[in-house]
C-alpha cells in the first residue's frame, strides 16, 4: 500500500498563533486545531446541523472535538461520533515543515 500523499494547505501561515484556524486542502475547507499531541484538522462544519467547527472545543485531553451547538462530540483519531452514533466527521493529519503546513485525510 502506498502512503497517501501530503498536500500543502492553503490559507494558513506558520505565524498563526490562534487556533482553531481555517485552512483548505485540495480546495476543501477544514479547521485546524492545535492539540497537546500536535496539529489535527477536521471538516469545516458539524454533520449534525452544519454549525461551524470554528466554534468547536477540544475535550477529553485533546482527543475529541465537541461542536458548540449541541455538544455532538467526535474522536480526533477516526472522526467517529461519541455521543451521536452514526455521525462521523473527516479528520486530517496536519504537520508543519519548513514554514508551510501540510495535511492528508486520516480516516
Amino acid at each position, binding site marked *: 500500500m502506498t502512503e497517501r500523499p501530503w498536500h500543502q494547505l492553503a490559507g494558513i501561515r506558520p505565524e498563526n498563533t490562534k487556533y482553531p484556524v481555517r485552512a483548505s486542502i485540495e480546495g476543501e475547507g477544514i479547521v485546524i486545531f492545535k492539540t497537546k499531541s500536535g496539529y489535527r484538522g477536521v471538516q469545516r462544519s458539524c*454533520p*449534525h446541523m452544519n454549525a461551524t467547527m470554528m466554534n468547536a472545543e477540544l475535550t477529553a485531553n485533546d482527543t475529541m472535538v465537541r461542536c458548540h451547538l*449541541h*455538544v*455532538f*462530540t467526535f474522536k480526533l483519531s477516526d472522526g467517529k*461520533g*461519541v*455521543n*451521536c*452514533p*452514526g*455521525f*462521523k466527521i473527516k479528520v486530517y493529519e496536519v504537520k508543519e515543515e519548513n514554514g508551510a503546513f501540510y495535511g492528508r485525510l486520516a480516516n
Partner: protein
Amino acid sequence: MNSAADSFVLKGAHVLDAEQGIDKVADVHVAGGKILQVGPREVAADTKIIDVAGNHLSAGWVDIHVHAYGTLGFANPDTVGIYQGVTTFVDAGGPGIGVLDQFMELLGHLETTLFAGAFIRPMGLLGLNFIEGDVRTLGEVPITRWVDFARQNRDMLRYIKCNAIGDYGPGTLKLTKGLAEILNLPLYMHIGEFQLQNPEHLLAPEAFRIAEAGDMITHLYHGNLGQVLDENGKVLPVVRDAERRGVIFDLGFGGYNFSWGVAEKAFAQDLIPHTISSDLQQFNVVRPVKSLANVMSAMLRVGMTLPQVIERVTRNPAKAISLTDRAGSLKPGMPADITVFRVNSGDYEIMDCYAQSRRADRQIEPLITFKNGKRFDVDMTMGQDENNWFLQFAEDHVPSRAARLSDRQRGFLDSLASSLSSVTWEVGSAERLDIEKALALQDVFHQQRGRNGLPLKDALQAVYASFLDQSFTMQIGLLLVRLEQPFVVGRLRDVARKHPIAA
C-alpha cells in the same frame, strides 16, 4: 398545634400560589411532610423556623417535558429535578410500551417524582437524528398491551406523545390520538424541529386541528418550519381555533425549539403558553436550556409577570397532567413540595436556540427545594457536570463498576453473550436505525433473563455496567444495536468471566 419533630415553618418569604390566590409575604407551616397552612398559626416553642425572608416561595415546580431516560437522558436525572427546584417532572416520550417496564424499574427511585409521557412507538424516543420509523411501525400499537399496562400502572402514565413531523401524512397523529382516547389520557404533540427528516409536508397545522380540549402541543415558540405564525408574523387561525377549544400550549424550550423572534411576536398577540417546560436533555443542558429556572427567566424577559410564570410551572402543569391532588399548590393537606427562589436584579444574557440573545434585568434563581417536607439545597452545577450528560461507551476499558456485579448477573451475561453470538446486526447510520432488530435484541435479552431467573433491574444493570462508566439508562435493544456485534459479545464474555478489569 403539631408535634415539633417533623414540623417546620418557612418564615418571611413572598408566597405565590395561584390556586389559593396568595401573592404576599406569609409563613408556610409544614408538618408530617404536608402543608399545614399558609399564613399566621400558633406553633410549638421548639418548632424549627427556617428564615427565608427576602426570597420568594411557591409550590414545587412541575416540568412536564424533560428527558430523564434513554439516549437523551441523564446519568442522574435528579440533577435537573430536585437540585434545580423541580419537584415533579414528566419524561416526554422516552419510553414506549415496549420499554415502559425498563423505565419503571430503573427510574422509580428518584427523589424527584417522575412520570411517563409515553411515546406511541414501542421503543420510545430514539433520540438523535435517526429518521424515526413512525410509519414503518404504524402497525405496532398493541392496544391490549397498552390497556393492560395502563390498568396496572395508571398513575405512571400522564400523556401519550407523538411527533408531528415526517413526510407520510397525519396518520401517526390520528393513531396516537386514538390510543390516547382509548387510555383516557391527553395527547401530547411535538411541533418544531425535523432533525434530518425532509419537511415537505408540514404536520404542525394538522396537530392543531386534531388536538381537543386537554390535549397538549409543545414547542409553541419554535422558529423552524411549521411555526404558529404566518409569513407576516400573525398567529395562524388554526392555532387560535385550537386555543379556543381548550388545547393546552406548552413552551418546550429545548435545544432547537425556542426563538426570541417568534416568542416576542406571538406574545405581543397574546399567544402565551399555558405551561412552561424545559425539554432538558443531555444535548441542551449546557446550553441553551441550562435549567427550568433559566427558561422561566426567559419568559419574564418575553413579558410575563412573575405570578404568570410561577402559575405556569405550578398550578397549570399540575392541571394539565391531572395531578392537582398532589402538586401545583400549597393548599392545606398537599404534599410539602415547595420551591424557595430568588429574583435577582442585574444584567443577564439569555440565549435562544438560534444563536440569538437578549439582555435581561431579572433572573430567577432557585435556592431550596422541599419534597414531601425533605430539604434539598439547590446545586445548579450538578446538571452541567460532563459525567452527568456525556454518554459515551467504554470502548477501551471495562467500567470499574462491572467488578461489583453478582455471580448471578455474570452468569446471565455469559448466556446472553452466547445467544447474541448467533445473531447478526448492522450498526445504524445517522439516518437509519434498524428498530426491528433492536426489538429482536431486546427479546433475546428478556429470554435469557427469564431463563436465568434474574430480576429485570439486575439484568439491565449488568449490561449497563459492562458498557457504561456512568449510570445512564437506555432502551436495552437500542444500546445493543448501537454497538458492533463482536464487541458486544466479547465484552459480555470478558465481564462474565472476570477478565482483567482496567481502570
